[in-house]
């Protein structure tokens, strides 16, 4: 399937506006904890997931909302999850850092950097031995590229020619650490050294990402093995919603402004005919209004159920007190 430019635009805009609303809801204390916004990086998830089938698998990160939306998750249930409600995708148990929809092949956001990578290899193998060859995409950042488990996974994926796509979102920073101060050599060469296809892509250009993703899924489905995509992108917001309360000097406003000039949503919107573009904007706002309403209307979990869903066997964990 190939997505139209307006589909891509709609997805990117949904992610952008979803995140902007999340920030408001966090600041209004309607969402507990912290969330990591995907704003600026929308073209990456959108372009890559547009090349996937419904039954393909992705593993996401701490910055996962965009991946989920792009893979087709219901924003109403996402919103309910972030508000910690029973109609959330994870029944309010997961929150932003663990949000998942297994039915859509979304094996979850993850609180631990790069920890989802080996899940993708296992999923890819499970389906590669089966009849249908499903693709598994593992998303991770430039910081995640320095976790050993990622290298262990690249080695296996290349060795076994698994249908895995290593989608590296290089947004230039791991929290405050610039990529140049965390990473030796080039990410593309590091991946290529395992004998896998590896390319750098402009992560601010959704069509370029989509094309690269099509090349990668093509290889994967043809049993030609994994692909590494370094998507060069940028995050406009702080590392997480708490950053604005901190005085961190790791990047300049000028740098942020420079990247915003290449905004993928503005660029794509400009290519659409005005009417379509406006119609999409309205539709997205309606969708998100509805999502917030849906989430607010959903009940909070009952503390009496706190020990449920820990074991698939139905075992109830021990309580912390007697009697």
């Amino acid at each position, binding site marked *: 399937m190939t997505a139209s430019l307006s589909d891509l635009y709609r997805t990117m805009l949904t992610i952008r506006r979803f995140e902007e609303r999340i920030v408001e809801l966090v600041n209004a204390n309607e969402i507990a904890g912290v969330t990591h916004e995907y704003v600026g990086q929308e073209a990456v998830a959108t372009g890559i997931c547009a090349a996937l089938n419904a039954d393909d*698998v992705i*593993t996401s990160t701490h910055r996962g909302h965009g991946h989920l939306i792009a893979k087709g998750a219901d924003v109403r249930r996402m919103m309910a999850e972030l508000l910690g409600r029973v109609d*959330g*995708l*994870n*029944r*309010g*148990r*997961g929150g932003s850092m*663990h949000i*998942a*929809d*297994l*039915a859509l092949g979304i*094996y*979850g956001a*993850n609180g*631990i950097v790069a*920890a*989802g*990578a*080996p*899940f*993708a*290899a*296992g*999923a*890819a*193998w*499970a*389906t590669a*031995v089966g009849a249908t060859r499903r693709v*598994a995409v593992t998303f991770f950042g430039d910081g995640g590229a320095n976790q*050993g*488990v990622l290298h*262990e*996974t690249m*080695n*296996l994926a290349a*060795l076994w020619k698994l249908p895995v796509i290593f989608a590296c979102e290089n947004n230039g920073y791991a929290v405050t650490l610039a990529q140049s101060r965390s990473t030796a050599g080039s990410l593309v060469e590091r991946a290529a050294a395992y004998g896998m296809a590896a390319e750098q892509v402009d992560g601010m250009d959704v069509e370029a990402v989509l094309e690269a993703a099509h090349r990668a899924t093509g290889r994967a489905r043809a049993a030609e093995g994994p692909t590494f995509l370094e998507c060069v992108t940028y995050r406009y917001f702080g590392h997480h919603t708490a950053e604005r309360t901190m005085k961190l000097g790791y990047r300049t406003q000028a740098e942020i402004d420079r990247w915003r000039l290449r905004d993928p949503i503005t660029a794509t919107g400009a290519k659409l005919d005005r009417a379509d573009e406006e119609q999409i904007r309205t539709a997205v706002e309606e969708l998100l209004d509805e999502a917030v309403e849906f989430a607010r209307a959903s009940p909070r979990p009952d503390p009496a159920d706190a020990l*449920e*869903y*820990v*074991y*698939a*066997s139905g*075992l109830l*964990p*021990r309580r912390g007190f*007697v009697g």
Partner: protein
Amino acid sequence: MSTLRYLPALGRALRDEMAADPTVFVVGEDVRESLRGVTKGLLEEFGPDRVLDMPISEQMFTGFATGAALSGLRCVVEYQIPSLLYLAFEQIANQAQKLRLMTGGQAKVPVVYLVPGSGARLGLAAQHSDHPYSLFAHAGVKTVLPATPADAYGLMIAAIRDDDPVLYLAPAAVLPVRGELPDDPEPVPIGSARIHRTGTDVTVVAIGHLVHEALALAGELEGEVSVEVFDPRTIYPFDWKLLDESLQRTGRLVVFDDSNRSCGLGAEIVATAAEEMRLIARPRRITRADTPIAFAVELEKAVLPSRAQLAGAVRAAAREGPAG
């Protein structure tokens, strides 16, 4: 009914379950050649897609099993050394074990983490002699520690069929033990303990290979102290109900536990009994010292729980409280 050793019984369970369920497969280091003796013949019988040698990348292949499990397969992961579980600790305790709760019940992670040869083995020294079951019990990971060939068989079947991650530790010291196995053996339910020998004076909770030491001691003390030998078989969830029944009878508890003392399983058993059960004598623990195992055999023996220490504790307990 046939007599066989522990390791073949364990291997047979894996083989039978792979034959019964095509979604079951094994990964690990040197499993094709069956270096540890569990996977003998599986490659020939089930082919290379169900017996997979992995690179030396424990974190990766532990997470690989999670991904395969989320995709509908059942994976048995073999680790050559107990301390390799430390490399995979995040993937087991923080990922696989938590996925069910984190996804609000969406995920099911049927993976068995198998260590064929855990605990000390004279001369293997500090990094190859740990017995880390208490760590996983603390993390709420289902953990089994069979002491006999029949339980090795029955608990492996149950572990593979279980929809949650299960840690399966086969103590090095029991691998050579012989025992009976019925012709069509049953699974042993996870969470059910077993009383190997009934007694009226003192309940000895013995873990893993120490069950055999405890039984030997119970025999030696015959006539002097009547010892009930309690084998939890499953470390987590622990069979508190059966322990409570045993203590209703004896009221005296000695735990014989081959893990470090502090925050070990022995502490949990003594604490739970002290809080909730009938005790007419002080509960006691015989455990490892809180130290890594040194290489020299004399030093290793000096810090492991011994039958002599157990005898002392059992006799001391028997002397306390009203005659049983």
